[in-house]
């Protein structure tokens, strides 16, 4: 079963500031955690894709009616907390396993190693066959 695990910028439950305010060793530890998790999931044959997106600063929104010039909006955005930060696409045996991986992701280490308690959105990917 394929799932997408998504996280946006605002969904940190623990009382933690943005990564730009962390100590360098904490940033390093967080990065290492994500890398190690990817390695583990890859070795288990579960990771299809792990993607981090560039910052909301650089995001653009596009709206078009197919006739006039498309309207392109640049950041910064008031709703930037709702923007996607990154996602993983996994292929696992069951929903339970997907939730397990989401929990691991959620507890990634933040300042002083404290788990960030990120809110992870778990969505099953639509496929060609029903399961």
């Amino acid at each position, binding site marked *: 079963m394929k799932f997408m695990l998504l996280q946006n910028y605002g969904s940190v439950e623990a009382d933690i500031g943005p990564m730009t305010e962390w100590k360098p060793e904490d940033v390093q530890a967080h990065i290492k955690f994500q890398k190690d998790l990817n390695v583990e999931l*890859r070795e*288990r*044959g579960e990771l299809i894709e792990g993607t981090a997106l560039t910052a909301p600063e650089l995001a653009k929104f596009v709206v078009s009616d197919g006739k006039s010039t498309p309207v392109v909006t640049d950041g910064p955005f008031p709703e930037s907390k709702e923007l996607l930060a990154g996602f993983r696409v996994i292929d696992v045996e069951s929903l339970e396993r997907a939730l397990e991986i989401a929990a691991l992701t959620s507890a990634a280490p933040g300042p002083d190693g404290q788990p960030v308690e990120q809110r992870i959105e778990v969505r099953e990917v639509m*496929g*060609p*066959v*029903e399961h």
Partner: protein
Amino acid sequence: MRRPPEIEGLLRESAPRALAAVVRRFGDFADAEDAVQEAAIEAARQWPLQGVPENPTGWLVHVASRRMVDRVRSEAARRGREDAVAAEPTAPTTEPGEGEAADDTLVLMVMCCHPALTPPSAIALTLRAVAGLTTAEIAAAFLVPEATMAQRISRAKQTIKSSPEPFEMPAGEELRERLRAVLRVVYLIFNEGYLSSDGERLARADLAEEAIRLARIAHLALPRDPEVAGLLALMLLTDSRRAARADAEGELVPLEEQDRSLWDREKIEEGLVLLEGAVSRGAVGEYQLQAAVAAEHARAPSAEATNWREVAALYALLERVAASPMVALNRAIAVAMADGPEAGLDLLAELDGQLGKHHRLPAARAHLLETAGETAAALAEYDRAAELTNSLPEQRYLTKRAARLRDRDQKNSSCP
């Protein structure tokens, strides 16, 4: 690594046979699989240049066995002991006969459908080691990257390797259990291939074929097993409808709307004969019963002319043999076709607790409500089903059906 197509076909057939032979001689599945894969790579390199050997399977057994012996020797050397090393086994001088090859393949299937493996892992390993598909082909069929699939297969082999039981072909009740697992895996492979809509089909078309091929081999090895024959019959009867399953745009066409002139009569004939043979052997199992349902559809010249009462009775039998909410749901639909939508809706009402958020319940309800003329309720159920499904082709079908109903309803209400 790309293999030239003629060599490709040869290797796909010979590699599993060679694996069976090497496993028989050395007893270690995972190492044997590695060794045969390495031999296959050698073959892909050498055969285009030196010509294909007269006995391709024997060649692979020869090369793989040498690797196994080398591995055993270097293991022994590392441990600093003079272990008695197995003398290199004599490779067969001729290709194994069909019967012997079938027996060997059955052994491989039983090994691959190991109780410690989850179904997806058993499926991947079976397609690799028994069907001879490349990792890239299996990955494409399941829509994952090749590296992901390679890992899955590798871990499956490791799981078997580290399992405490040394491989011995089981007997009695354990063998029956393992055979059930084999049939389940084969049927899962078939469904993955068959249920894909035509648009997504290209990468998956072969899966249904492979499953049928594996079932044929199992049937050859176990000609008197009624469930093996039943599964083969079920798949043939189901696959006979393949050409009618998708419309010109590649969208799903349900059974009731299919053009039956497109059904493959040869497959149907073969399926019916197999089923007859199986059922005559006594205790009837789940695959035979499902095949019997498929046979009723195959015999009917149209959806309306189908013997729905018989289908309902078969599902009732199936509920006794292998009960599941899905079987109950299918029975409800058959009852509706025989006795009218209200009878079916009554039965569906009993399933609410068991089917949770599965889309097939509202989908079935929607169809019956539509037949009963309860448009508003039907539309609500179509919407709910479309919301719950995880299959894209299914979602598109439900959305279109709801749109058609809405459209008809509006036209009717605007008529005087």
